[in-house]
């Protein structure tokens, strides 16, 4: 019997939660813990019954977290792989979506893109995302230059801006990412809007990059330089 369970306690094996492990790694690092706590407390602070939080301050604290904490911590929190919904819900909750992501109504995606382009930093981060996560059929990974890290980094770079993307649900089988917007009311720009939205929702490069990170299979694909 001992040999069957060797190396793996069945109780801990069934409970393994990579997103929880990522939170632990962050909590044990003073810098990560401090900046994580800073954005969580800011994004979670209720101002009044009418205003559940200050989105502006929440976004700023999120940007500081992703700018100042190394990717070895932030990527683990954002892209942890999950086998159950508890884990996937924790992953979805990483950016405190009730404050940083969700809103009363869903704006049109092209309006959201317009708001992002009006801000020089958001504009350049969005351009990075389109460059580094652009799905291509010329490479086996669907990513430009097979560079998963560049795509993941550009994705994380959008968090805390108008275009903040997130997991749309706590599904473990299919990963769907989207900014908080829809293509309703696009008029004659409908096609352009759908194309923009699909770069998030149906992007094989982004999906492969996230899955490879979660499985730990992206290691060999990072170009050495």
């Amino acid at each position, binding site marked *: 019997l001992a040999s069957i369970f060797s190396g793996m306690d069945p109780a801990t094996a069934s409970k393994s*939660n990579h997103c*929880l492990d990522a*939170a*632990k790694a962050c*909590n*044990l690092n003073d810098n990560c*813990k*401090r900046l*994580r*706590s*800073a954005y*969580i*407390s800011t*994004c*979670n602070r209720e101002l009044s019954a009418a205003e559940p939080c200050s989105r502006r301050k929440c976004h700023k604290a999120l940007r500081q977290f992703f700018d100042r904490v190394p990717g070895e911590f932030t990527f683990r929190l954002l892209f942890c792989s999950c086998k159950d919904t508890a884990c996937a*819900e*924790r992953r979805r*909750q990483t950016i*405190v979506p009730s404050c940083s992501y969700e809103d009363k109504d869903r704006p049109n995606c092209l309006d959201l893109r317009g708001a992002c382009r009006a801000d020089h930093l958001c504009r350049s981060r969005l351009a990075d995302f389109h460059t580094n996560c652009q799905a291509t059929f010329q490479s086996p990974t669907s990513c430009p230059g097979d560079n998963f890290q560049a795509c993941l980094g550009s994705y994380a770079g959008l968090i805390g801006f108008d275009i903040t993307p997130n997991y749309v649900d706590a599904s473990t089988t299919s990963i769907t990412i989207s900014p908080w917007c829809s293509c309703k009311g696009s008029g004659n720009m409908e096609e352009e809007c759908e194309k923009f939205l699909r770069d998030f929702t149906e992007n094989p490069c982004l999906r492969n990059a996230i899955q490879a990170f979660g499985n730990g299979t992206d290691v060999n694909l990072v170009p050495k330089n």
Partner: protein
Amino acid sequence: SRRKRARARHKPCELRELEVSVSELGLGYESDETVLFRYCSGTCEAAVRSYDLSLKSMRSRRKIRKEKIRARPCCRPLAYDDDVSFLDAYNRYYTVNELSAKECGCV
């Protein structure tokens, strides 16, 4: 061994740390998240002040009788660590302050 334990008991006041789950803190939160709990531990024999010696003397001379006094220094936090935040089992975030010691001293 016994000698090892005796030596551990006589370590001077210093910061120590434990990795514990949030549930284990006993603050009423339910979360499997792990946090670093830093605490102050050790003896303060070297930090006895004239104050402590005099206080002891007053007590033995029965000048102080009914009051609760402490005539020796105590190993306690001088400063506390930054806030700690975590997600609980019901997907709510919480932030706790002054959870962990940052600096210890004989006070």
